[in-house]
């Protein structure tokens, strides 16, 4: 695409005489589309350079044995050239035949599905409540979106403060009630529940606002008509509200599914993936391989990255289907 755009200026002038011959089609295409191509050229060029090139390198690295000790680096004044070599698909076979990847994948899916389901359900319930005549509606709304307004990494630190095992607020309150301290972040099961809880807390406001928007786009006369026909509240919700929300909800569920799947900060800042690697999702595990463990395993991490990308591409296909159903033409 970029190649074509460079030729745009002369082609535009030659348009009239060139039509009809074999290259004529290309020229005609250029003359009709050159401005569209010129408009997208900057993004295509920039994406090609800063995403395309690293991506190709990443795929290449994933087929080598690169690690901290053999990549190109500079120590003081000495420049040490790279000495890693290609190992073919060995990294992939190792990862896929090793239990760690599958364990992490299963937990990532559990994490994504439970976070999205819970925050969607809670967001929808609160939206339905807020979408009525109600005293203090603005106040509730402001209060309920606060978790979204505060930067996520700040909130996560707050939760660590509350979850602190020795003297965090939750355990102090439990102690006051005579209950033993709960190792919120230090026991595998509790840690999993805690990270999910924090992420749901962070995710509900987005769902709430999106669902409110969706609810307001449902025409009120539908409800009136249903009531005339004797439908009760549940039937109205089931047969008008839910179908009416479908376009919005499919979009937000997919978006937040992707966000949650890639949710680095919550896990990384709350538990660092611990205890052990109990709460490590795919993304944080790949990060751990290249930046936390020693020696840093760049090749292994790159291979994890490629596998994660393959999984997400499946997501993309589903997402596009959803967009198409809503009438996006491309």
């Amino acid at each position, binding site marked *: 695409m970029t190649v074509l755009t460079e030729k745009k200026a002369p082609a535009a002038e030659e348009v009239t005489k060139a039509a009809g011959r074999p290259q004529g089609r290309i020229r005609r295409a250029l003359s009709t589309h050159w*401005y*569209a*191509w010129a*408009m*997208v050229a*900057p*993004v*295509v060029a*920039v*994406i090609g350079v*800063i*995403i395309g090139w690293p*991506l190709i*390198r*990443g795929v290449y690295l994933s087929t080598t044995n690169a690690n901290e000790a053999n990549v*190109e*680096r500079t120590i003081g004044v000495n420049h040490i050239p790279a000495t890693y070599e290609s190992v073919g698909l060995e990294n992939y076979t190792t990862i896929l035949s090793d239990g760690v990847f599958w364990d992490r994948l299963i937990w990532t899916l559990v994490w994504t599905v439970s976070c999205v389901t819970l925050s969607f359900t809670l967001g929808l319930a*609160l939206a339905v409540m807020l979408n*009525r*005549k*109600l*005293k203090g509606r603005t106040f*509730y709304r402001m*209060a*309920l979106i606060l*978790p979204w307004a*505060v*930067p996520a*990494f*700040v*909130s996560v630190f*707050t*939760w660590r*403060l*509350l979850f602190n095992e020795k003297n965090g*607020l939750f355990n*102090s309150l439990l102690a006051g009630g005579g209950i033993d301290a709960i190792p919120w972040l230090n026991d595998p099961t509790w840690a999993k529940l805690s990270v999910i809880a924090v992420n749901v*807390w962070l995710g509900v406001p987005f769902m709430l*606002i999106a669902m409110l928007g*969706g609810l307001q*786009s449902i025409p009120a006369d539908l409800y009136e008509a249903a*009531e005339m026909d004797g439908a009760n509240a549940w039937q109205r919700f089931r047969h008008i509200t839910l179908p009416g929300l479908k*376009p919005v909800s*499919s979009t*937000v569920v997919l978006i937040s599914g*992707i966000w949650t799947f*890639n949710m680095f900060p919550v896990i990384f*800042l709350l538990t660092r993936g611990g205890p052990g690697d109990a709460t490590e999702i795919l*993304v944080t595990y790949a*990060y751990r391989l*290249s*930046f936390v463990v020693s020696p840093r395993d760049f090749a292994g991490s790159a291979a994890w990255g*490629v596998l*994660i990308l393959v999984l*997400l591409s499946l997501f*993309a296909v589903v997402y*596009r289907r959803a967009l198409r159903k809503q*009438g*996006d033409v*491309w």
Partner: protein
Amino acid sequence: MSTSTATKKPRARGERGPLASVGLHVTLVVASLIAVFPPLWLLVTSLKPKDEAFTTDLVKDFTFSNYAHVLGETEFLTWLGNSLMVVGLTTVIGVFISATTGYAVSRFKFPGMRPLMWLLLITQMFPVAVLIVPLYNLLATLGLLNQPVGLVITYLTIAIPFCAWMMKGYFDTIPVEIDEAGRVDGLNPFGTFWRLILPLAKPGLAVTGFYAFITGWAEVAYASAFMTGEENLTLAGGLQTFVNQYTSDWGSLTAAAVIVAVPAAVIFGFAQRHLVAGLTAGATKS
């Protein structure tokens, strides 16, 4: 509310019995408390003396010493400056570069559009894990690790696809008739875009920019991996240094967190209505 009168006459549509009303309010109050409590506790803790950070009572010895310490004796202001510079640059460049693309894919059908949309869609959901290693190696080779420029380039990989996508959504809401009127009056597509559509799209640009800003503002993974050394950190990395395996200075952490959160929350309050509209554009219009 009309609940008091509802007992006397038959209830009108949309009115509730008193019991339902109480239930509704109780639920909403509980939900609001859960939503508000952690940020509130952050504020409370930041106003306590350092050694009382974990006491359960509300502020007993009210003090601003944490704030004074954070502002005066730590690198906090440097981090704030770094964050503002990196994220600000990313936002401006991102919106600037992607606006025309958003317009093109919103208005024209052209060969290469489908692949481009796929490209934007997939790059948008790129997990950090895919690019972090090659980017790290590339930046190391170019000598850009620990440099704000390196982080700006990195953040653009997130911002550009996202901005282009959001701008498309916004341009979709501007009637095509305006373009047609421009064309009739003899403007070429660039003229139409520049003189007619862009001025109309200012709110869209602002919202896209704002969203790109808060995304970068809260980014943790790249910032933690690429920036080392106290004076190079951004906020997300810097705040981590207050509480780690060696120290746990919750007083400073909470004070710094409040300073970061308050302006963000206020601006967010103004922009939030438009945010979701932008993200789900197309889904709500029909």
